[in-house]
């Protein structure tokens, strides 16, 4: 029979050596940096080492592994490091940071209010998208708080887009007020009209 079964030892391998791992994050060899980026998820000092290495990392797969390792640390320090990269001038780093925050935001309730009140409108726009991963009522509340005070129309548009999925009837008053506030912008009025239609088409309000 051409099918073969080779003797193999499938016992888990040894834990990586911390100082070696952190040193290899700066290796010239991308294969070594990839392995180090992954191993750094289980190493003390891994967060600061990855945060320092990410802005100069040019290999997309190594960057991906670095972001995943930051997510696996799941500490305040690692979250701060990811948020810092949301402000980067590099689109690759911003996208990587946003994708990583998306998988963290459900487990860290304090994270999104902080991001939605950030002084940087670009951060607020990106952060609206993160609300999709929250319960309806919580997402609706946070986006309504944002909409009530927001002066940047593009931030409002981002929030309205998310409310099309998560919004409940609790958002109707805020949406109507937002449409009035930006009355000279047919675009936002049209977007809000669609969301209101969606919400009022539901059989009963969503409560979560």
């Amino acid at each position, binding site marked *: *029979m*051409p*099918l*073969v*079964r*080779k003797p*193999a*030892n*499938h*016992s*888990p*391998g040894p*834990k990586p050596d911390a100082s070696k791992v952190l040193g290899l994050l700066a290796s010239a060899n*991308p*294969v070594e940096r990839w392995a180090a980026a*992954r*191993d750094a*998820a289980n190493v003390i000092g891994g967060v600061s080492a990855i945060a320092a290495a990410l802005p100069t990392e040019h290999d*997309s*797969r190594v960057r*991906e*592994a670095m972001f*995943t390792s930051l*997510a*696996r640390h*799941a500490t305040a320090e690692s979250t701060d490091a990811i948020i810092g990269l949301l402000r980067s001038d590099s689109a690759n780093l911003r996208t990587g940071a946003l994708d990583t925050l*998306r*998988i*963290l935001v*459900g487990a860290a309730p304090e994270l999104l209010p902080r991001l939605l009140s950030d002084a940087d409108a670009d951060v607020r726009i990106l952060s609206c998208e993160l609300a*999709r991963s929250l*319960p*309806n*009522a919580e997402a609706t509340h946070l986006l309504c708080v944002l909409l009530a005070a927001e002066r940047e129309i593009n931030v409002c548009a981002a929030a309205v887009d998310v409310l099309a*999925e*998560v919004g*409940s009837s609790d958002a109707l008053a805020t949406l109507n007020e937002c449409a009035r506030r930006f009355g000279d912008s047919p675009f936002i009025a049209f977007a809000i009209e669609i969301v209101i*239609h*969606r919400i009022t*088409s*539901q*059989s*009963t*309000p*969503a*409560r*979560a």
Partner: protein
Amino acid sequence: VPEFPALTEEEFRRLCEYLYRRSGMIFTEAKRYYVERRVHERMSATRSASFASYFACLRINARGENEHFVNALTVNETYFYREEHQLRCLTTDLLAERIREKRKGEAIRIWSVPCSTGEEPFSLAMWLLENWPRVDEYEIEIIGSDIDTKVLEQANAGVFGKRALMRLSPYLVEKYFSPMLEERWRILDDLRHSVQFSAANIVEPNETRIHGNFDVIFCRNVLIYFDGASRRVAAENLYENLLPGGFICLGHAESMSRISPLFEVRRFADAIVYQRPAGDPN
């Protein structure tokens, strides 16, 4: 299932958009009846009074509702020759690409993870013996791994019930199985001994790395059950376990593109699969 009102157009659209974002599964109006039936079953099971309250329950994943709903939407059972189109893709397209770089007699390694009670890795073995004319020219190694050591014991025993064999022709059952009592069949020893089973958690790099590199990995209907971080870790582990140019086959409702940018999408006549780029260093 009690009577529930039909979903409104907006409710159905909202649900489908959510499912797409969450799992990559695409349902259109053509599947409305199928989806609605599952929604009503789950509304009944969760005692939800309305679609809105059920959708809220789904979105917050109350009592693991996401998993229950996805289970209801996908046929979550294992049997021989499940998703046969992927097996056809393996012998028609994937292996043809893989052997371009191999000499005769070289090893082709295939990993079934998670393998549950063994139907998938044994299906791979049988399919190759029956359908790949070049099967004798290479050393083919099939490994089945699962986190659950109890199912691995069952896989090693190689005993299966009638339901597991439902897709196999009488010819294949007779050729590869011997009947036992109470509508049970034991897979032939030659075949049983040709597949190796091992314990592995696909989110633990230490447990996956030791399995080495594979030409093809079958990892079906498991990633949908992980949270975002674990899914990314699993994707990176699977990437590491593939040879450059190697392929990964997911369940029909799963999409690697929504999990990780590490893979390239390959569309073949019988299946969409994901490939570790051939140029990626190993």
